[in-house]
């Protein structure tokens, strides 16, 4: 188990992060009914170590994107804390926060909406540098050229507009912008989901190179487990706002403990196995306004018993570095992942 992720050395420490969105109700319910909230993120805790790529995986409604936005402080938490290199992230006042924003940068899913269509690439990539007064004039142009080359584009592209580029190229521009201030943590929210498969591969390879060269910690948010397996060192699986399992990537895919993780892995269609059985689990993701009692996964869980609806399982370390929240953790039957079985 790597030392990097232990609290002391962690770049990012997330503790009991919670975000509830108020639900708009009619007048009667507002006055007389219970206050309803969307439990978007509930008591999420994990660490990201230095130069580690940490995956956050889940389906819709899991809260993974909201978690990313909370850490980027694009939205404020209901409770909980985040520590970045020892600094209490949510306690910063506006001036301090603005200064420290340089340490956490984000890239987004939609390559067509993440760049201002009326700005040139030069302006887009230079914006962080200009905002923080890091460079001006010729020095600024040089830095922008350097960043563009670093992400596989040419300096001459700086004069062009986003609409002249393909989706993959726009993601590169977004990445160049994110790297401008040499951040410590890069939050990547579904960065390749909107791209064609062959372009995904280009961008993923590039991200790996960049991460090594710039020595970044990366929070990689995705619904695509295959991509996460390829690029992440450790992975957390989220379901309905909670983290249900965290461990090293290889372990997660080889021997997952939580039934949801197992179901997720079994549901992924693979382009090589010849089986035509569909290991589907029943039901759909419940409403985040009224999450199930006890363990949130119990209505769909093949292992569920009476205890599961009464008491929420504790998030415990069942094996070194392998955490899961389940009353009935058991090592699974030989999981998929072995070729030929």
């Amino acid at each position, binding site marked *: 188990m790597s030392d990097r992720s232990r609290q002391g050395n962690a770049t990012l420490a997330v503790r009991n992060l919670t975000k509830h969105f108020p639900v708009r109700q009619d007048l009667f319910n507002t006055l007389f009914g219970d206050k309803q909230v969307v439990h978007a993120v509930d008591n999420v805790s994990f660490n990201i170590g230095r130069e580690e790529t940490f995956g956050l995986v889940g389906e819709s409604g899991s809260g993974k994107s909201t978690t990313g936005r909370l850490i980027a402080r694009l939205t404020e938490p209901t409770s909980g804390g985040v520590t970045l290199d020892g600094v209490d992230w949510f306690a910063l006042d506006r001036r301090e926060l603005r200064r420290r924003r340089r340490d956490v940068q*984000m890239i987004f899913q939609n390559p067509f909406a993440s760049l201002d269509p009326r700005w040139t690439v030069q302006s887009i990539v230079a914006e962080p540098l200009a905002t923080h007064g890091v460079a001006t004039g010729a020095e600024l142009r040089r830095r922008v050229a350097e960043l563009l080359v670093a992400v596989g*584009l040419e300096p001459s592209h700086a004069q062009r507009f986003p609409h002249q580029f393909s989706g993959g190229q726009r993601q590169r521009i977004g990445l160049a912008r994110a790297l401008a201030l040499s951040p410590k943590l890069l939050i990547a929210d579904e960065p390749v989901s909107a791209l064609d498969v062959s372009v995904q591969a280009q961008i993923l*390879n590039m991200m790996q190179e960049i991460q090594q060269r710039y020595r970044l910690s990366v929070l990689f948010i995705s619904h695509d487990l295959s991509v996460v397996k390829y690029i992440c060192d450790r992975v957390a699986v989220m379901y309905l706002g909670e983290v249900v399992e965290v461990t090293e990537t290889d372990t997660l895919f080889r021997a997952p403990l939580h039934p949801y993780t197992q179901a997720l892995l079994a549901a992924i269609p693979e382009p090589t196995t010849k089986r035509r059985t569909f290991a589907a689990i029943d039901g759909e993701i419940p409403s985040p306004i009224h999450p199930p009692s006890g363990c949130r996964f119990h209505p769909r869980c093949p292992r569920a018993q009476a205890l599961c609806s009464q008491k929420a399982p504790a998030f415990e370390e069942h094996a070194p570095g392998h955490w899961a929240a389940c009353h009935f953790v058991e090592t699974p039957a030989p999981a998929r992942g072995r070729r030929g079985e």
Partner: protein
Amino acid sequence: MSAIEDAETVAQVSQLDAVVVEEHVSAWRKFFAEIAGSTKGLSGFVLLVLVLLVAILSDVIMPQDHTEQIIANRFLPPVFAGGEWAHFLGCDNLGRDIFSRVILSTQTSVAIGFLVVLIAMTIGSALGAISGYFGGFADTAIMRLADFQLSIPFILLAIIFMAIFGPGFWSLVVALSVAIWVNYARLVRGETLRLRELEFVQAARSIGVRDAAIIVKHILPNVFPSMVVMATLDVAWVIIFEAALSFLGLGIQPPMPSWGVMISDGRNYLFESEWMTLGPALGILITSVAINLFGDFLRDTYDPKQARL
């Protein structure tokens, strides 16, 4: 190894064929190409340029002195109904040349049109952007102000302003600006609400760009095309309403010429000289047709739905 050499290795590894997707044509060239390609656009544009030239050069191209009263020429008919070339559209009840007065009025009307729209656009977009971006109390306050104002009939509003400030050019401008700023505020607010959630705005926030800078540099430039379409059509509306107010005696006061004033004067002499009324009416007609054609063309070509992300 310098940063750039390092980066070239990265480029090789990621094997990007850095081919740009399409060439960028200058916005102005594209604009004029569009105009040339559309009957509506071309005719509107040509007429509009004509009107603007007349407005700017009115002092120079007026055939006669618009204040000169020649009693002998009272109710002189236009040249095609038995009159003289010197007075193309004939003369009014005081012997003044109608054609010259119509031309001079162009200046007044166009000036008011653009001025009012400019003011309304500035105020409206500022308030709309604040409203949409920050939400909360500011949003509620501004929107309720807008609602309140819209509930007052426009003519009543104009009368109130005239009563407070006295009639004249500037009261008119203020009254009309107050009437239409709400449209811009609403438009900009709606667009701001949409744009605020887009990722490039989120990116700017995560970089640490100040809110005011985000509004001015990211949001307003993206709202601008929709506003221009609305503004163009509003100029026509303002010109017509200025005429209406002046006709009612609430706007431009004589002897300053304006189409509305001329129509008002002509009202009493419809049997003696219908051209006292028809002259200025034609002026209004041509100008608003020009503006509407061009504004329609703008809306068709630059429809926000197509220009949007």
